[in-house]
């Protein structure tokens, strides 16, 4: 990896304050973060720590109150319009009236891809998430894990080089989650995308990430950024190695430190 390469996401003294009925909520306070190309960055912390909010700021779904944020060297709005990222939400949110292929084709239709190209892209995206053969099924015919894979395919279809994922496996059971984690790593290897991944699971964060951003609430802020010493190639049983356990321990410590405030 060349050090000269421009950062993909660069946040400086980023603040976001929500005005709510009973006062201000400091969702993000002085967040500084640089994400390099090809990084797999996990955001972990208790609810209310601003991890989802940060991802939404990157995606131009929320506006920061102060500070600067650049995505691919552009403002988040420009990056969104340049289709810089694909976003995967907590729920699959597939359209029940569209088939799986139809759902994956949705962004391509909106972005105006020609028909033949769109067809090829849908096929490739479904292949990446191992859903080939399910094109004509409707979402309700698929399990929760398969639906979430289809929603990842939908985010991959237009080949953005950033993938933002907001607790994509949060609603799935442990066994399915393990499998999807493995698949996600393979997919990341394969495509070389930069991934921002929100989770509240320590093993998931450690297993997937090259960097782990530990956050804490009230106000939402970063308490620790951990560079993972784990190799990029990770079988599932790497989770039993001392290195893995050491990283997990440090994440847990960071989370505890954040909590000691209140």
């Amino acid at each position, binding site marked *: 990896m060349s050090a000269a390469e421009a950062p993909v996401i660069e946040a400086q003294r980023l603040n976001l304050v929500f005005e709510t009925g009973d006062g201000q909520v400091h969702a993000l306070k002085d967040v500084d973060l640089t994400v390099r190309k090809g990084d797999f960055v996990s955001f972990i912390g208790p609810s209310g720590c601003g991890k989802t909010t940060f991802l939404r700021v990157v*995606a131009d779904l929320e506006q920061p109150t102060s500070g600067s944020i650049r995505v691919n060297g552009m403002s988040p709005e420009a990056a969104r319009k340049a*289709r810089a990222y694909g*976003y995967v*939400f907590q729920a699959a949110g597939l*359209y029940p*009236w569209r088939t799986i292929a139809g759902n994956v084709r949705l*962004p391509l239709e*909106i972005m105006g891809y020609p028909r033949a190209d769109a067809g090829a892209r849908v096929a490739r995206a479904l292949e990446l998430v191992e859903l080939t053969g399910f094109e004509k099924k409707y979402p309700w015919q698929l399990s929760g894990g398969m639906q979430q894979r289809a929603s990842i395919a939908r985010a991959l279809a237009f080949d953005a080089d950033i993938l933002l994922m907001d607790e994509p496996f949060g609603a799935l059971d442990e066994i399915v989650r393990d499998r999807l984690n493995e698949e996600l790593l393979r997919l990341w290897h394969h495509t070389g995308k930069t991934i921002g991944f929100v989770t509240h699971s320590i093993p998931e964060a450690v297993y997937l990430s090259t960097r782990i951003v530990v956050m804490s609430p009230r106000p939402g802020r970063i308490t620790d950024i951990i560079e993972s010493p784990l190799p990029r190639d990770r079988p599932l049983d790497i989770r039993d190695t001392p290195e893995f356990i050491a990283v997990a321990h440090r994440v847990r410590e960071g989370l505890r430190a954040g909590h000691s405030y209140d």
Partner: protein
Amino acid sequence: MRTAFPVLSVVAVILALWYAACVPMNAQWARDQAARAGVELSATALVTDTLAQQRPRLPAPHQVAAELWNTTWVEERHGRRGLWNTGTLSNRSLIYHGWVTLSATLLGFAIGTGLGILLAVGIVHNRAMDLSVMPWAIASQTIPILALAPMIIVVLNAVGITGLIPKAIISAYLSFFPVVVGMVKGLRAPEAMQLDLLKTYSASEAQTFFRLRLPASMPYLFASLKVGIAAALVGAIVAELPTGAVAGLGARLLAGSYFGQTLQIWSALVAAAIIAAGMVGLIGIAQRITLGRMGMAR
């Protein structure tokens, strides 16, 4: 069969209650007739008589059925002015009167549905309309249509609009409301997440409408259409009452009540119910086909 049984049981109970009510309702007249003729009325004779009077207070179900049969098939097939003899519908047949009302209903329903959808689209996309239109739509439904109908007819008459259109407008007045309410709810059915997703694609308002809001609203639309078509039929019948209309189910009801023709009233009522059930059924079929094709049928 499993669905037919409960339905038939309910029908049987209603018919039994109806027959049971006929006897006391019509007994007075039977007793008066017997007293006038100076004869003693046995219990069986009383029951037989109350179920077969010419002008009963409450006609028995089989009398209504016979009246329906006579004023539809028999009238058109064998009547002097029937379809078979003249080539046009007889003005004494319920088919003719039913069609007069149905045509106003369908036109009114089409206008009401179109207006309802347009208003809902406006309400969902325009904050000013959101705040201003809904209270008026609700207020419009609190005015008794029976009071409003003559005014609408008179005003339209003054500007030279007569016949089908005024009736259809009153129909539309009743049927647009459920469509507005249902479609506003339907077009707002997509969750914030779904809208966020389209924002990440930088989708336009039109793309959001046609690819997300409109398909998401379909189940709501059909539910509203079923309410709307029934309301449209009520509107068309009510519109016929205060106008001295000579044709239509409303006119039959009114004429029946002037001349004490309870059979005519009841057969017109039943005809209206059959028409309503048929139209709701047709919308149900359209719903099943549409949602089935969209993969949304359960």
